[in-house]
């Protein structure tokens, strides 16, 4: 196995054993080499010493030629087993004595050689001069066997091998024990790392074993784990906040969640979100943490942007103020006064534009690490995105709602237009139908002074009812008509109008509830003086009727309806309709004046209060509304002060009966024709009637040709075949100076559209009123005294 792939322990062992083994081998080799070298030297030295001793001892035997003695001296060399041969040469160079005696002479050098010792193959041999004093007496030859050296060397190698073996074993056991010092901490570290990666539990910490590098490594590792755990915690927090934010779709709750979570889980002492406004440039505090509010800021506060971190943050930079007590700007100083030490300002960016700022602070200075800052930045990014999405969502929802509303409105308007057209037709017929009633009633009231008071009262009620019918019919058109251009404002007594509406709606508040055992009390608190306003009485009655009906609807279990009028100081006149019903919640209060908004389900059209509002607007009156769920509703109409003085009598137009005239009345409705004939004849005029357009033209032409022309022509507008326009044209072509007055069931509409047909001098709406007719005729034929009948 290559060393680098080995497990740590094995690797360490291998390295240590390799090292110690190599050192041992080298030491042994050195030791052996040294021993061999020194041993050769020592051997040579020893041999030389022995040779010198022997030589010294041999002087006498040589000097006195004692061969026996020489033999004895040499045989003493037995004590040195290495010395295998020795010989003494006399001064003449002859071999004098030798050792061992068993050795043949031929084994010795024939003659002594040079002094000194030499190594030969397996021997060390040499010559030593024998001298007494300065006298040379002979030469000694000695030969030593090197087998002894070889033996020594072998011994050395054996010993060295044994020592090396023992040393190696010792090194093995030592390294096995000692390598733990290194490997154990590393393995423990590796084990921890493995456990962490397996279990993903970053709260585990490595146990520190010893100091130095491994200790530092453990510290660094643990430090890294701290970082990872911190980061994980932050990520988790970020995740939590992001998903919490994701569940919310409005800015305030997104920011509130963000700030709250930061306070709870990120241990900030201050957290707030401000929205950036450009005109004027300032920050509006949108959301403040629970703990934070007491520190420095409150929701809704506006912060000016000074030249500090805020302005840098507005430019899109994350700003960290590690010690705000040293920053001399109003905003940081304010926060510092609240006890904060450090501050992070993070911009909320959408598509590169700052729309807000997240501000977090801690009480201690240097309270945020770079990781903290990074976290805040990421959180800002996420929440900015969420906020943007919430905005988009809201806008989308708004657009959707608007679209739905528009669709609803268009649908309603379409329905209304159809209804309006139908209503127009009906109105025309009704106007035609009630015209005789109106004319006769008016005529009776006007011209019959002998009527009993009772009859007069009844007739007056009939007259009012007819007037209201006419008004109602004309109101019907308002559903699809925006605007009544010409409004005849007249003094209207609100007190009288209220009284009349009470009478008219009696069935709704008295008869119907009573059948179910429910009692609705009517309480009148009217001003003592007539509450006069300038207005259209019919419209005002209509408005009151709607208010009454709503009030009754709000009191299904019965209650009290209070009607109150008052002339405010300054002349404004107010009328209040107060019920003790169920009241309105805020949503209803806010929307009740919108057209088509109803709380009555299919029962309601949603037009009642809208109409009241329309009436109020046309009269420059304000609608005031006080209501709360369960505590009834007060509707208040406040009219402007009238141009005329309060309490002034209603100006009554009394027109004297006009000069008797020859009149041609053209209509396709015999009943109307008859009633007009009766009324106008009653006025003293000479009336000729023509049933239809063409007969009318014929009658006029005939009379004109006969030299007895009509003074004026009164014609219906809408007639089959030849309508009022054609009649007017024909008459004008014959006699341009003869006035033509058109009566119309569509009258108000034509008037408001300015659609007075050519050749028509005056357009009057049905039902015609006697007064109006008188006025119209008087306009063309001013009463002249003395003009003949």
């Amino acid at each position: 196995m290559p060393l680098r792939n080995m497990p740590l322990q094995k690797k360490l062992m291998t390295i240590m054993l390799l090292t110690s083994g190599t050192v041992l081998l080298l030491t042994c080799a050195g030791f052996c080499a040294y021993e061999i070298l020194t041993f050769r030297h020592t051997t040579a030295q020893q041999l030389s010493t022995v040779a010198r001793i022997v030589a010294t001892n041999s002087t006498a035997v040589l000097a006195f030629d004692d061969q026996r003695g020489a033999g004895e001296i040499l045989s003493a060399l037995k004590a040195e087993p290495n010395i295998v041969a020795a010989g003494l040469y006399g001064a003449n160079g002859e071999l004098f004595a030798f050792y061992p005696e068993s050795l043949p002479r031929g084994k010795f050098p024939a003659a002594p050689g040079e002094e000194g010792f030499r190594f030969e193959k397996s021997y060390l041999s040499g010559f030593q001069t024998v001298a007494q004093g300065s006298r040379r007496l002979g030469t000694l030859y000695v030969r030593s066997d090197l087998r002894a050296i070889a033996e020594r060397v072998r011994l050395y190698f054996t010993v060295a091998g044994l020592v090396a073996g023992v040393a190696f074993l010792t090194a093995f056991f030592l390294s096995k024990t000692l390598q733990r010092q290194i490997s154990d901490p590393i393995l423990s570290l590796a084990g921890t790392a493995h456990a962490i990666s397996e279990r993903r539990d970053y709260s585990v910490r490595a146990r520190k074993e010893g100091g130095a590098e491994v200790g530092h490594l453990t510290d660094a590792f643990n430090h890294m784990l701290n970082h990872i755990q911190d980061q994980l915690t932050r990520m988790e927090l970020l995740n939590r906040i992001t998903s919490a934010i994701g569940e919310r779709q409005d800015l305030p709750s997104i920011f509130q969640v963000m700030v709250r979570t930061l306070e709870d889980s990120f241990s900030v002492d201050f957290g707030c979100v401000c929205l950036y406004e450009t005109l004027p440039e300032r920050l509006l505090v949108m959301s403040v943490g629970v703990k934070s509010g007491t520190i420095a800021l409150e929701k809704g506060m506006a912060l000016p942007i000074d030249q500090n971190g805020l302005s840098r943050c507005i430019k899109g930079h994350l700003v960290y103020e590690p010690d705000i007590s040293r920053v001399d700007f109003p905003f940081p100083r304010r926060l510092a006064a609240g006890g904060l030490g450090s501050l992070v300002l993070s911009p909320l960016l959408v598509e590169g534009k700052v729309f807000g700022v997240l501000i977090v602070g801690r009480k201690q200075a240097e309270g945020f690490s770079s990781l903290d800052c990074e976290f805040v930045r990421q959180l800002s990014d996420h929440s900015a995105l969420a906020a943007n999405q919430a905005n988009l969502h809201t806008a989308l929802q708004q657009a959707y709602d608007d679209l739905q509303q528009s669709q609803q409105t268009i649908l309603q308007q379409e329905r209304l237009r159809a209804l309006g057209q139908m209503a127009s037709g009906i109105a025309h017929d009704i106007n035609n139908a009630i015209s005789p009633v109106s004319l006769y009633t008016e005529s009776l009231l006007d011209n019959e002074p002998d009527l009993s008071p009772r009859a007069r009262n009844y007739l007056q009620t009939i007259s009012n009812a007819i007037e209201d019918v006419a008004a109602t019919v004309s109101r019907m058109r308002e559903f699809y008509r925006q605007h009544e251009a010409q409004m005849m404002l007249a003094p209207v007594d609100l007190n009288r109008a209220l009284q009349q509406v009470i009478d008219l709606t009696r069935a709704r508040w008295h008869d119907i509830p009573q059948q179910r055992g429910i009692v609705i009390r009517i309480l009148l608190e009217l001003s003592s003086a007539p509450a006069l306003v300038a207005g259209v009485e019919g419209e005002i009655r209509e408005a009151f009727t709607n208010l009454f009906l709503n009030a009754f609807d709000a009191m299904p279990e019965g209650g009290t309806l209070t009607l109150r009028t008052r002339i405010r100081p300054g002349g404004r006149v107010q009328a209040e309709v107060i019920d003790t019903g169920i009241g309105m919640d805020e949503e209803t209060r806010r929307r009740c004046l919108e057209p088509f908004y109803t709380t009555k389900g299919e029962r309601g059209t949603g037009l009642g209060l809208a109409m009241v509002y329309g009436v109020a607007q046309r009269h420059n009156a304000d609608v005031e509304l006080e209501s709360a769920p369960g505590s009834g509703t007060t509707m208040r109409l406040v009219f402007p002060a009238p141009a005329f003085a309060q309490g002034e009598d209603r100006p009554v137009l009394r027109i004297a009966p006009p000069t008797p005239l020859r009149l041609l009345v053209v209509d396709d409705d015999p009943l109307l024709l008859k009633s007009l004939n009766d009324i106008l004849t009653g006025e003293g005029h000479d009336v000729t009637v023509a049933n239809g357009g063409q007969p009318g033209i014929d009658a006029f032409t005939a009379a004109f040709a006969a030299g007895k022309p009509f003074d004026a022509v009164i014609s219906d507008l809408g007639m089959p075949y030849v309508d009022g326009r054609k009649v007017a044209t024909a008459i004008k072509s014959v006699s341009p100076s003869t006035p033509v007055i058109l009566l119309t069931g569509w009258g108000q509409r034509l008037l408001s559209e300015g659609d007075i047909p050519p050749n028509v001098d005056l357009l009057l709406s049905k039902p015609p009123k006697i007064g109006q007719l008188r006025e119209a005729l008087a306009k063309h034929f001013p009463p002249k005294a003395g003009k003949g009948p």
Partner: protein
Amino acid sequence: MNRLLCMLAASVLALGGPAGAAPAKEYQVKAAFLFNFAQFVEWPKTAFSRPEDPFVIGVLGPDPFGSYLEDVAHGEKVGGRKIVVKRYGKAADAFGSQILWVAGKDMATMMQDLAVLRNKPVLTVGDADGFAVEGGVIRLVMKQNKIRFRINVEAAQASGLSISAKLLSLADIVAPGKG
């Protein structure tokens, strides 16, 4: 020197030769022995009166050496002193010699001479029977055709001579009053 060694070697060879060689040859070896003794014996300081005194090898009585002594000593030095060979008639004259050959003409004369030389720093050498017993220091004897020697250690000590152990190891030690 080499010449001397050659001579000695030659004499040794000669001695190992056939019996009945010329007596003169025997004395040639003995002359070499006399000279060689100078190498293995130390004399007391009193042996020389002056530093420049030569080393004297003397012959008392009849001279058996002929010119051998002169041949051996020629050009040689002992302890830095030149060797001089002298011949004496009377023992009393021979006090200044360091090695003295005492010829054994007869027992009585020899004993007389030795008595005179007793206690004097002179190494007396002779080959007469009983020479060492009678007070001579070294007696040369023929043994198996070889010249060996006997040493009277007491006499040597009395004369203040110190004889090398190496020399002693080759010699027979003679106790006084015996053979």
